[in-house]
């Protein structure tokens, strides 16, 4: 079974580790990397060929980071966690606000993984920057 590859870049450390534990308990998902500093995110996405990234909403809204992620990997699922801990949003292709429960985030990751082209396939097709 092909697992959904997820890169974790949210903070602080304990929340990132908690999210990792939730994901690694899923048979259809795996954590392929952790990025404590969002500056390293672009390299990590390319190196790990992640299908999804979980990061802080304020980082995902940062113009440079978001545009680079989307330009290089338009089908990458991005889950942004709001600083108040009350919402998360998921894309590709759309901005969807969900209650930040583990179940909602896992469900959104699974739905997004049914998209036609994951980042791994993009790399294989030579479409990554």
């Amino acid at each position, binding site marked *: 079974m092909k697992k959904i590859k997820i890169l974790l870049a949210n903070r602080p*450390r*304990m929340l990132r580790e*908690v999210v990792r534990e939730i994901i690694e*308990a899923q048979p259809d998902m795996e954590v392929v990397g952790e990025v404590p500093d969002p500056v390293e995110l672009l390299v990590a996405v390319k190196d790990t060929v992640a299908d999804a990234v979980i990061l802080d909403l304020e980082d995902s809204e940062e113009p440079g980071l978001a545009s680079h992620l989307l330009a290089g990997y338009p089908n990458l699922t991005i889950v942004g966690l709001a600083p108040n*801990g009350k919402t*998360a949003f998921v894309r590709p292709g759309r901005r969807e606000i969900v209650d930040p429960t583990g179940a909602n985030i896992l469900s959104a990751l699974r739905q997004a993984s049914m998209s036609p082209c994951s980042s791994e396939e993009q790399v294989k097709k030579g479409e990554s920057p």
Partner: protein
Amino acid sequence: MERPIRVLIIHRNRLFREGLAFVLAQQQDITVVGSFPGAGEVVAELVRLTPDVILLDLCLPGREGMGEARLIRGVFPEVKILMMGVSELECDVLACAEAGVTGCLPKEASLEDLLNHIQAAAAGEALCSPKVAGLLLSRVAESGREKQLRQVRGLPNLTRRELEIIALIEEGLSNKEIAIRLQIEVQTVKNHIHNILEKLQLDGRREAARFARERGLLVSAT
């Protein structure tokens, strides 16, 4: 086999609460007895839930974490409170100690750190970094020197916090303003002032400030 450590989680971040409860439930020596977004709902449930250790987030709006720690300790003094998200600044460390917190975890603490702290707290112990230990020991030593000095000079045994409050009264701050400046509850300020007036055998806060200034107490407090 010893009974599991009963842990209660108080944290505004729902994902963190859920995930942490999930992780802790997998530990054989821990039972999660409840998970709440704030302490207001918790206090009424403490007798029923009987937690051994409470995990409390400092980073709540208006720094409510410290006030909630005092609230909980007032109702349930035996419970051990671990405050999460605490910096190693002296003011934060001392505020936690004064609030009766058992242990503090910094923002970048790991899950493993948390598990170690829970086990230590349940055993009546406290884990802290060398820096925090140094801060606390220095403060205890300083308090001891000040107490000795006051005794030699025949002065009333006012604590450092009481002297801080008298100094702020002399600056003209209200109780509410003092509470904000020292990052404590207004009721705590009132309690301190009550103790000050009792020790000095005076009737008013202004008299207390004048008394302390005339006897050179405020010079050493600032």
